[in-house]
């Protein structure tokens, strides 16, 4: 930036530089040029989140008649809060929510731990044919969609008494394994083996090496794997609906399907229920966004 106030040409550049540096931020406050391109992009990105959220909130406060009048954006006046009570009652919300949390928690924990263990064994024994082929075997499961094996799974889970949320969680772990192992093995190959050798020199067993050294080092990839596993199990509809036999132990997405079928639509009650399902995640994010964001940048700097 030019500084027209300084006229002395003879002034040494070295002397001027720090002077200008200290002044520059002060002078720019409030006068910065707005980057319109970036602002518009960010606005568009914000709209993609805000508009559906707006519709969700508005719809959940509408009466039955307002909900089907073909105008999703209209303001719901008078406000109708009874939709939340109806949704809560119809879905038996706390129970369905609890089952969903249980399934997701088991699926995430199981996927991360089992995949990490398997990947460690495979990568460090790559020279053995058994481990190499088991890697390909596990990867092959990626080409196996659930609907293909659904009938057999329903029959088998029924036979061994796993036709409940625990069985659903186990199956989620199984279907999530191959992709997670792919991620973990790629990451493990980039970890220096010398670290493990030094642990061995200090007398660590294979188990200790894994739990105290390798698993913590895998943390960034574990987070990725956990996010994928969480999304897959939290949002899944088909598997719980087919596997769980006791309707009282059904997950949230399955229970929520009762709001809409071919012939009728209760958008207002449905959206009230969706909002309640979303609320915990939003509330947690509001209070923890500082840590979430700091976690993101921390990874970036390293």
């Amino acid at each position, binding site marked *: 930036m030019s500084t027209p106030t300084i006229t002395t040409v003879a002034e040494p550049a070295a002397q001027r530089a720090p002077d200008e540096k200290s002044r520059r931020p002060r002078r720019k406050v409030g006068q910065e040029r707005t980057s319109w391109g970036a602002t518009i992009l960010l606005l568009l990105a914000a709209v993609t989140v805000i508009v559906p959220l707006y519709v969700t909130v508005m719809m959940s406060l509408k009466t039955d008649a307002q909900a089907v009048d073909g105008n999703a954006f209209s303001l719901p006046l008078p406000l109708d809060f009874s939709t939340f009570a109806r949704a809560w009652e119809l879905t038996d919300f706390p129970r369905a929510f609890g089952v969903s949390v249980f399934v997701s928690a*088991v699926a995430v*924990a199981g996927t991360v731990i089992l995949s990490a263990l398997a990947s460690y064994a495979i990568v460090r024994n790559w020279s053995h044919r058994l481990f190499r082929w088991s890697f390909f075997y596990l990867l092959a499961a990626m080409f196996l969609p659930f609907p293909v094996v659904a009938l057999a799974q329903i029959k088998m889970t029924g036979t061994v008494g796993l036709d409940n949320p625990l069985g659903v969680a186990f199956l989620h772990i199984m279907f999530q394994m191959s992709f997670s192992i792919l991620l973990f093995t790629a990451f493990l190959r980039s970890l220096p083996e010398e670290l493990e050798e030094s642990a061995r020199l200090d007398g660590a067993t294979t188990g200790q090496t894994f739990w105290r050294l390798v698993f*913590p080092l895998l943390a960034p990839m574990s987070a990725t794997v956990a996010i994928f596993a969480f999304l897959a199990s939290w949002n899944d509809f088909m598997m719980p*609906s087919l596997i769980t036999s006791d309707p009282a132990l059904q997950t949230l997405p399955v229970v929520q399907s009762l709001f809409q079928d071919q012939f*009728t*639509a209760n958008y207002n009650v449905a959206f009230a229920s969706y909002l309640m399902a979303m609320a915990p995640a939003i509330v947690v994010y509001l209070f923890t966004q500082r840590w979430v964001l700091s976690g993101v940048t921390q990874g970036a700097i390293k």
Partner: protein
Amino acid sequence: MTASPHFLNRPVSRRAVLGGLGALGVTGLLAGCAPSGGRTDITFFMSKTEVLEHFTELISEFNSSQSNVRVILDSSSNIAATFVRGNPPDIACFTYNLEMARFMERGALSDLSDVSIASQIRPEVQELVDQYATYPGRTSVIPWSVTAAAVIYNQDIFEEQGLEVPRTWTEFTEVCEALVAAGITPIYGTYRDPWTIAQGHFDYTVGGSFDTAEFFEKMKEQGPQVGIDSSVSFQKDFFEPMERMVQLNEWSNQNAASRGYGEGNFAMGAGEAAMYMQGPWALTEIEKTAPDARLGNFPLPMTDDPDDLRVRVNLDLALWIPEESQKKDAAREFLEFLTKPEVQDTYNQQFLAFGTRQDAPPQEDPRVAELQSFYDEGRFYQGPSKAIPLTIPAEGYIQAMMTGSSIEGTLRTMDNDWRRLAVRS
């Protein structure tokens, strides 16, 4: 990598993790067991969303009326999965269709010929069950509620324009032309939802033209021979009705291809069109925005003989008890409760359906009362679109014809699909 000190300081983490898993698992298993208090618990499957509340009330009425059986409502299970697993519901009140008939055909449903209602069911209605499949020597399915679908029309518009309900195809075309001349959209189409064309335009034009039950009977016999040379085929028998179906486009709203079921209901409530090819389920949806709309029903005429008029019916709800149920007696007790005239008739009256007993009272709601005489005289047919196995994507084909595909080519594809399916199974 903030997690590393945490794990390094806690060598027992593995045990903690596994312990936690185990505890969670036990919680899940325990939740499955509930004390039944000396009563027999039976699972009752009923998944029709709009009548859930009504059934919840019926169940609590039944549960408090006696102390032997406790009914537990299941509205979210996948019915096929329960049969595969070997723990189907003890009793179900469920839409009866071709997919459900497969279970009956293979003897998965127990014989109910000795329950008290069995002898009172109208033979024409019981015949609807047999059109899909039968199991020798058994009455496996008790029809409980029948819905009749036809052309919903706006009575105010018809009166203002001085129009009579058409009884022949010629009269129908005249009504449509008169409405067009008056600047009113005659028919509201919602082609974005393929099922609305299949159960409306397609079923009405085919079902109004000839005996569809007989047609599908022959199609089943011909099976692998279906094609250009067979005695019956989609190409041969459906061509004329399909031409008429596509002709309905002329009198429909211009934007029908981009309109869905929800928009159609709203438009009919707002009086934007005179006619709507939907069943009674649409009436309750229209009621949400237009509680005072004066609507009526008439069967779509396909010939020039008023005696050929027939309405489309479907077994909206039918009762059955699976062979595998361990508590058939308790289930039958609940079945007897549901088939009490006052329980059954109240439901049918309230939800615009028709009774299945010979002495069932007539439907009084003016919106569907016009269909009563057709139903009483047995002038009805089951939707032909429902007689085509889901393996053949008929709804998609029908939508394609409606929006411009060649009728001849599409029907030939349907014949080919039918033949391939017959060869395969």
